[in-house]
């Protein structure tokens, strides 16, 4: 749950860059004849809203309404009592609260002639809300805009790359601290959490759990100023036979990572290194924009797409053991023309 530091710092992302993000979306909307774009978010999945407004949906649900021209507005189930706080951490001025998102949307559009409302990632919207919009917006066409905002987010600007690098440093440091010494898994989680939160993360997910009886996993997924990164390492208490296999498979995938590579190619590289191992395993390549949900909100088919230069991705290899435990190794990489640069470089290389 989001209970870390939420800031709007124009030194990090300038007000003009924030406005330009909305302007790019509006240009695309105008080309498609869309009157307003609605972006749904909840406390678990709201990265697109944060990207366009710096707003944090810290609880409940909301919709960012972006008109074809003019400033966006937030339609939210959160109380109007938190509007002053929302204004302090975002560039939004028009904040509207109510119990029903359909009613808020209807009120928002009441002065406009019926046209097209674009729903960003319409497949992930609650069907209940979409049905309600259809009922309350007679004459309006609801059109799926797909992952139009995510596509922009996958080409981070230089200022965004700075924040992603900082986020990756924090994730790596938290894992490093969680690995140190002899601790129980709750103690590892406590130390990793403290490290990340003192560094100013907005949210952090820390998973410390056994990986057979011979090892523990420390995995951290952290959000710094809206930018998510991933890191994970295994701390060994012995020399299980699977340890070198994990290193070799991950190392093979990491070496293969570069522009144009997709997860199937990484799977082949890791699989070759595993040489028919009986341990079930899974490798995943997750854009930083999908890390908040562990990649679960990727639209069908997206998982298979190749990465391109300029993107930032998490590489994650998981062994699933028969006793129900898991070993996870992961890092965050910036994909560059000449290969992949590990942003979680504070951690030792797995293959070393």
């Amino acid at each position: 749950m989001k209970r870390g530091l939420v800031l709007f710092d124009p030194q990090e992302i300038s007000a003009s860059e924030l406005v330009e993000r909305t302007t790019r979306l509006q240009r695309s909307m105008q080309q498609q004849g869309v009157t307003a774009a609605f972006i749904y978010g909840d406390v678990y999945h709201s990265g697109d809203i944060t990207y366009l407004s710096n707003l944090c949906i810290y609880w409940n649900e909301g919709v960012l309404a972006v008109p074809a021209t003019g400033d966006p507005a937030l339609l939210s189930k959160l109380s109007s009592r938190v509007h002053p706080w929302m204004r302090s951490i975002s560039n939004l001025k028009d904040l509207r609260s109510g119990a029903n998102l359909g009613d808020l949307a209807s009120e928002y559009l009441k002065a406009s002639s019926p046209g097209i409302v674009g729903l960003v990632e319409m497949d992930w919207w609650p069907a209940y809300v979409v049905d309600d919009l259809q009922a309350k917006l007679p004459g309006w066409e609801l059109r799926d805009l797909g992952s139009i905002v995510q596509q922009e987010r996958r080409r981070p600007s230089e200022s965004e790359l700075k924040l992603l690098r900082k986020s990756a440093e924090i994730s790596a440091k938290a894992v490093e601290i969680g690995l140190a010494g002899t601790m129980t898994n709750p103690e590892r989680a406590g130390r990793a959490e403290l490290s990340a939160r003192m560094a100013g993360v907005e949210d952090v997910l820390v998973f410390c759990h056994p990986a057979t009886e011979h090892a523990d996993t420390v995995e951290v997924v952290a959000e710094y100023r809206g930018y998510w990164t991933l890191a994970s390492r295994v701390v060994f208490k012995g020399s299980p036979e699977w340890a070198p296999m994990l290193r070799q498979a991950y190392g093979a995938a990491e070496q293969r990572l570069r522009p144009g590579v997709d997860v199937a190619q990484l799977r082949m590289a890791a699989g070759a290194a595993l040489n028919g191992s009986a341990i079930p395993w899974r490798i995943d390549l997750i854009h930083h924009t999908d890390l908040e949900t562990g990649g679960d909100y990727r639209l069908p088919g997206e998982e298979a797409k190749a990465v391109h230069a300029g993107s930032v991705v998490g590489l994650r290899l998981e062994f699933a053991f028969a006793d129900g435990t898991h070993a996870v190794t992961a890092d965050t990489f910036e994909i560059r023309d000449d290969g992949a640069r590990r942003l979680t470089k504070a951690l030792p290389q797995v293959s070393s």
Partner: protein
Amino acid sequence: MQDERDWRISRVRHGMTKAGIEGLLAFAPGWRRENVRYLTGASLRGSFATAYLPMAGNPAAFAGTVQDEQAIRAHGWVADVRPLVYPDCSEMLTRLRESNVPGKLGIAHLELMPRIMLAAIRKGLPGVEIISATRMMNQVRMVKSEWELEQIRRAGVVCSAGWEAFVSALKPGAMEFEIVAAVEAELKRLGAQDNFMLFASGGTEVMGMSPPGNRRLQLGDMVRTELTPQLNGYFAQICRSAVLGEPNEGQVRSFALFKEALEAGLAVVRAGVTANEIACAENDVFRKYGYGEYCTSQYTRVRGHGHGLHPDEVPMIVEGDQTVLEENSVIIIHPNTYTPLAGYHVLGDPVVVKKDGFELLLTTERKLFSV
């Protein structure tokens, strides 16, 4: 634990009968997993999972990740565990067809179910009437078993420890988010899986709570929090306020007002009373001293609420809510609101509702803390 599972299934099926539902599908998005956890007992990590309970026969569960499938199997309550794969959700629909397809299917958290999933269900189960079972499941979960109460008691102990960590971290110059960091670290060290927490610092200008900022604490500040750790799936909440330095007259008067209101609310708690009666008892104290206007939605949300597998469950303790409290439901009484005396003030204790009163879940003193 099989007794616990059977007790739950019995309660759910009783609720299904009353609602005229022949099959229940519990849906768990990443931020509302409580119903699937209730039916499977498993701690989940993925963004989507469902659990299906027919009126007769065995339950089944469906998870979006292999890890969650394993977690459900390992818990042992549901043997039939299958993958949940978009866009066609075919394994889930196949299983629903294998047991007699219900004429009326209740979906818990239907209101949050993604269009892609509901479209697959509508297409795959033509002719089936689909209704929301969210309210039904809220009612089912409201009364806790003895095992559930034991988990909430443990969460109550961690609440008290979290508050101690909060007070220990308070000092002039510390930034708000650093206080939260210290609390989170302690909660996690004690085994908490998650925590819901809001925060505010300052004087009479504070109108409510939010996530923390980078404001530095100053002498004279009142620092408020509600923190809600989750232990083995179950949440418990504490609300307290502390002052850096000696409290001023307004802060002292404010605390006295809130303490009297909290204790007035607690005084009427017992099985059989309504949420409305508790809220009225709390608000009457504010009205008695001329602060009744601060009990409205302009200044506050609720005067307490239930908790369990979710931090904010029914009943909502508000005037007009006629929900009858049953024995072994768990609620927090918190008359949190703004007044001009000291700004937003929070004070609240969680309790188990008993036949003739309540069981307090905290050991933390009910006082205005001064650091």
